[in-house]
């Protein structure tokens, strides 16, 4: 066990006009410190991530200029995993005793837009209308449905589940349940994905306080241990975002590789996990990621979702806070929002959304452009 999480804080995701990403980051840190029962002056180092904030280390201006080292990490949608891993490694290596990881973001409304060249793509790719991340998600689930017999109804069921859980979560952004019929009647954005099957970019922050397992008793909360945090990028042949061409033969993607590495590091298997957070950029992503992370065979999702196995009371509770579909995605904060939820579940403090059966092992998965995945395993 590398490190113990003793405090978590969440600035709820949503829209906060007039409030900066750095201010939300400062709030999340304050909440995490209060949860841990310690002071900012106790923190010896921090890891910070943000897409929108210039210099994420400027978050210290929102909490206190104590001179501590703050290292900035950004891996797109997988940033939260990289922050957690770096903070846990700093603890494990004996570099520091108390470390904070914080992710914060504030995205404009609508689809992500960027300069293709800055992402390593030629101008013509954007000019022709191909430079959209959502294309990938439509194409990936379309192929997956064709190969493994997943129905449009199952896409709607997953979106309905996450929105229904969002309605139960006072900290979620989208708090209105929608029926499968309403979801299937919403406008098509990228076939076969419809408006209410997608998450939206929004704003928010999340923070975590970590310490050495031997020191965990000094803090206010029972420790949750980081058992593994692995990140992988893509290999040639993986079907990833915004590839102008692909080889004819497929290989496993970064999710499969990071997942296998995380289970190996933790010395457990998918069957030992009690509560799961998966990257649900869209309903199709949650379905595919169930199999890519080893929780079921390809195609089994059709019956698992219909049987309610992925609900909070099911055998494989997935996205127990409503996931990205209900919370939106401030990129750098998203992964630590998953950790916030898992820590509450493992403490037995998730209230109405508590997974029954006293869960002891949690799993968090992130995936995003241009082809990076992070998988973390936490346990009591």
């Amino acid at each position, binding site marked *: 066990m590398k490190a113990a999480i003793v405090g978590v804080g969440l600035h709820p995701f949503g829209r906060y006009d007039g409030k900066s990403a750095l201010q939300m980051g400062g709030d999340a840190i304050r909440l995490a410190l209060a949860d841990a029962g310690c002071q900012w002056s106790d923190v010896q180092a921090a890891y910070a991530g943000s897409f929108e904030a210039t210099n994420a280390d400027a978050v210290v201006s929102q909490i206190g200029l104590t001179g501590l080292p703050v290292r900035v990490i950004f891996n797109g949608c997988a940033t939260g995993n990289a922050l957690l891993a770096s903070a846990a490694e700093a603890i494990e290596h004996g570099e520091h005793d108390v470390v904070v990881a914080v992710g914060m973001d504030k995205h404009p409304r609508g*689809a992500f837009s960027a300069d293709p060249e800055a992402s390593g793509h030629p101008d013509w790719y954007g*000019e022709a*209308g191909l430079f959209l991340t959502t294309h990938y998600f439509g194409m990936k689930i379309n192929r997956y449905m*064709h190969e493994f017999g997943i129905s449009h109804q199952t896409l709607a069921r997953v979106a309905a589940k996450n929105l229904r859980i969002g309605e139960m979560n006072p900290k979620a952004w989208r708090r209105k349940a929608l029926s499968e019929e309403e979801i299937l009647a919403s406008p098509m954005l990228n076939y076969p994905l419809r408006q209410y099957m997608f998450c939206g970019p929004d704003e928010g922050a999340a923070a975590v306080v970590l310490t050495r397992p031997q020191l965990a008793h000094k803090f206010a909360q029972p420790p949750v241990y980081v058992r593994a945090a692995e990140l992988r990028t893509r290999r040639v042949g993986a079907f990833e975002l915004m590839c*102008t*061409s692909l*080889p*004819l033969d497929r290989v496993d993607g970064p999710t499969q590789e990071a997942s296998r590495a995380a289970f190996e590091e933790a010395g457990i298997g998918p069957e030992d996990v009690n509560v799961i957070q998966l990257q649900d950029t869209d309903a199709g992503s949650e379905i595919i990621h169930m199999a890519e992370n080893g929780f079921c065979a390809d195609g089994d999702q059709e019956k698992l979702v219909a049987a309610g196995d992925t609900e909070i009371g099911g055998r494989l509770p997935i996205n127990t806070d409503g996931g990205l579909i209900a919370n939106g995605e401030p990129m750098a904060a998203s992964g630590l929002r998953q950790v916030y939820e898992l820590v509450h579940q493992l403490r037995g403090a998730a209230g109405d959304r508590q997974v029954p059966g006293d869960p002891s092992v949690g799993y968090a998965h992130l995936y995003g452009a241009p082809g990076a995945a992070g998988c973390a395993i936490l346990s009591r």
Partner: protein
Amino acid sequence: MTDSRPIAEGLFTWPSEEPHLIGSRCDACGLVVFPTAEFCVKCSQQRLSAVELGRRGTLWTFTTQQFRPPSPPYMGDESFQPFALGYVAIDGQCMVEARLTEADPEKLRIGQEMELQIIPVRTEESGRAVVTFAFAPVD
């Protein structure tokens, strides 16, 4: 489309009655990519040869773009029409991501045969068409 210019130089043979996409084949490992590249992403070496890709292939997957993409970078005409895009597997070479000429997902089928076409993406103020590559269903 006599009065036209390609969206970028070196993507496809143009003007041409039977245009081909232009990719690269790695001299060492044989990996074929589109468009041309200066190094191989599989073996990292820098000796590659230009290769014309086959004009026909099969549709591996597809999606649609139902709303006008953020602009910039999108440079299509203001009067947006939804379009489809997908990956077309070209036998013995690679899969290429491209726009499709058929926008209706109900008329597209994974596995169907497709053929390269050059289509306009916008009209410049001078009236000249800017053209790009796309794949059309073969019926």
